């Protein structure tokens, strides 16, 4: 399966298993979603379980919170993560705090799916990576898969989770892994082990990272599209990196991170999102606090620049193989 099919399969599996799971969002019903992630679901499960919504993100999330309070398990979609901001109040002030402010009386077991990330000439409002906004909010979980297999298992776990989960889908790798070389032909998932996806139910526990490549020279912390870009770059230059795919940003798998950095003594943090105040800053602080005496070099961050995401200058902005190589060289030179 590609990642779209895996995500579609996760929703189909969960809707089959739990009559309280409903799917809603702009264009997700009859049409099956602008990325086809919900294709066929309405025909299979009916209009009261899979339906189109008005174009109002604040309404979509607000209604989902109310449905969650009733006892349903809504899976709302925000068409692009760039358009999640009108729903921020409902996510930050309501979904995230409902359990806490009602001392467990009411909960918001919602899973907000949203395509995110760049590398597709999406320009300013089809490329953003806003995960750092949400990891800053207590009460929200943030999940970002990097393969179809993980996408399905993590989405099932997110839907089953009784807390609100933001599930960001790196749309650059919907159809295949991306090595960062935009000028080479794109690959699909058929040759990749992460493209092997069981048809039935399985779950990947939230809050668990995965070491996608064991290594000794340094630790790379990455998620989403950047996992593949880092992997390809290290392979190309023969760097024995230990690459950790975080998969869940919050709650974070601190044990895996700590063990890896203590082993390698060096740490590179990689994300597409802008640098200042990004999630990489939190990762860097945590590694510094916990692995200070094992660190042999300053922690490096490879990120998007602190600008809005550009259109024509995309490949100068995107943290690709060249930026990665320079950071790796700097980290490994001592």
């Amino acid at each position, binding site marked *: 399966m590609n990642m779209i099919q895996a995500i579609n399969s996760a929703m189909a599996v969960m809707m089959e298993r739990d009559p309280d799971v409903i799917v809603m969002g702009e264009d997700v019903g009859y049409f099956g979603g602008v990325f086809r992630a919900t294709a066929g679901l309405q025909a299979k499960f009916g209009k009261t379980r899979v339906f189109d919504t008005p174009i109002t993100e*604040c309404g979509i999330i*607000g*209604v989902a919170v*109310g449905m969650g309070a*009733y006892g349903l398990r809504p899976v709302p979609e925000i068409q692009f993560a760039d358009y999640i901001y009108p729903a921020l109040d409902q996510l930050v002030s309501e979904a995230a705090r409902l359990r806490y*402010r009602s*001392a467990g009386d009411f909960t918001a077991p919602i899973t907000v799916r949203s395509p995110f990330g760049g590398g597709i000439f999406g320009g300013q409002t089809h490329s953003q990576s806003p995960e750092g906004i949400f990891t800053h909010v207590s009460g929200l979980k943030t999940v970002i898969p990097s393969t179809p297999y993980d996408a399905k298992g993590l989405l099932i776990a997110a839907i089953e989770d*009784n807390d609100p989960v933001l599930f960001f889908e790196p749309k650059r790798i919907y159809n295949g892994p991306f090595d960062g070389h935009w000028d080479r032909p794109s690959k699909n998932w058929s040759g990749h082990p992460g493209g092997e996806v069981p048809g039935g139910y399985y779950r990947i526990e939230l809050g668990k990272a995965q070491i996608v490549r064991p290594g000794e020279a340094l630790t790379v912390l990455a998620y989403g599209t950047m996992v593949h870009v880092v992997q390809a770059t290290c392979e190309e230059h023969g760097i024995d990196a230990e690459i950790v795919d975080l998969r869940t940003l919050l709650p974070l798998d601190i044990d895996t991170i700590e063990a890896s950095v203590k082993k390698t003594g060096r740490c590179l943090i990689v994300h597409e999102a802008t640098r200042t105040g990004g999630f990489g800053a939190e990762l860097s602080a945590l590694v510094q606090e916990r692995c200070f005496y094992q660190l042999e070099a300053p922690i490096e961050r490879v990120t998007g620049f602190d600008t809005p995401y550009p259109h024509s200058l995309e490949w100068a902005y995107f943290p690709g193989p060249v930026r990665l190589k320079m950071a790796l060289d700097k980290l490994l030179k001592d």
Partner: protein
Amino acid sequence: MTAERPRANLPPLTLHVPEPKFRPGDEADFADVDVPPAGAARRPEASAAPDSFHELAYSLVRVLDDEGQAVGPWNPKLSPDKLRRMLRHMALVRAFDERMFRAQRQGKTSFYMKCTGEEAIAVAAAHALERDDMVFPSYRQQGLLIARDWDLVDMMNQIYSNKGDRLQGKQLPIMYSTKEGSFFSISGNLATQYPQAVGWAMASAAKGDTRIAATWCGEGSTAEGDFHSACTFASVYRAPVILNVVNNQWAISSFSGFAGAEATTFAARAVGYGIAGLRVDGNDALAVYAATEWAAERARTNQGPTLIEHFTYRAEGHSTSDDPSQYRSAQEYGVWPLGDPIVRLKRHLIAIGEWDEDRHAAQDRELAEMVKAAQKEAEKNGILGHGLHQPLDTLFEGVFEEMPWHLKEQQAQMLAEEEASGRPWARK
């Protein structure tokens, strides 16, 4: 920036900034507020098409006339027993408010908000709804809980954030929550409950349930985007929900003109959304009851949502942190043409020979004693800042269903701080 005016032959544009009619020191006069006679508004079928409510959205549904008689097609014809129960609940809300306001002034808690003058809106609605219909209130519908006979001690425990507080001291006073009472957790963020109520109602419909939802916001909050989202969703999916707008003329210091009241009514907003819209005398408990009962029937028979504007007046300050004498005429409430909701219902019961002033006075005394006794009971659990609060560990509970490592670490840090401080705070 003052630029040289282009097209100098045209008259300059002017910006209209609304201004209330009366400011502190002004003599208030509401002679120009259009108050149609009781009984004048027609009562449509509950199945009437949403586009047939135009004149109802600009008029005022009223039942109680100046002599205290219930008149016209909206008269809900309630039994004397039910009328007395409603009156009692409204009087209890007022007694509760008085006592808790005073508790705040005595420093026993940090904050309180009264609903004086608006008691009919929540109490009569609660009497017209079923006990298990889910209500999504703002912070000024304490009458819903009281009309559902919710335990006053439990409410006060919340206000005091004491060790009996079910919300573990996590919420500002009056931000009640009880799933058992079908009363949704109150949020400080305005109008967020509006789309949530619609979502709850949609869920009820999707599951083939028979329960409906009702929600309330003030007229000021209708300016929030959530109001628009909620109305759109409610209309699109014909959600079984009652959308109440409590137009009490004031949003803290801003008069209703800043929410758009100079140009239209709030009930009229419904017309544009294709929602049935009623404008009701909010100080007339029978009109509120009748409109709610009508809207509930409409919702229960899958005819869709109703938006009800309750025309009323916020008799007191916005909250214990507010001083209305700084921005409005002190005379306003005294000359407000719709009067006092408790006085009007009392007069009706007396007019039909089912009540008298002596019984009313005796009831007021009884309710005051009852509230006082509840307060005494609640204060045994502590008042704010006097140590009898929740165990400190609870600070970290309920952020998530299960506590992640980073919260466990911070919890341990807090407990270490407490040890170091030597504070005598109990910890379970």
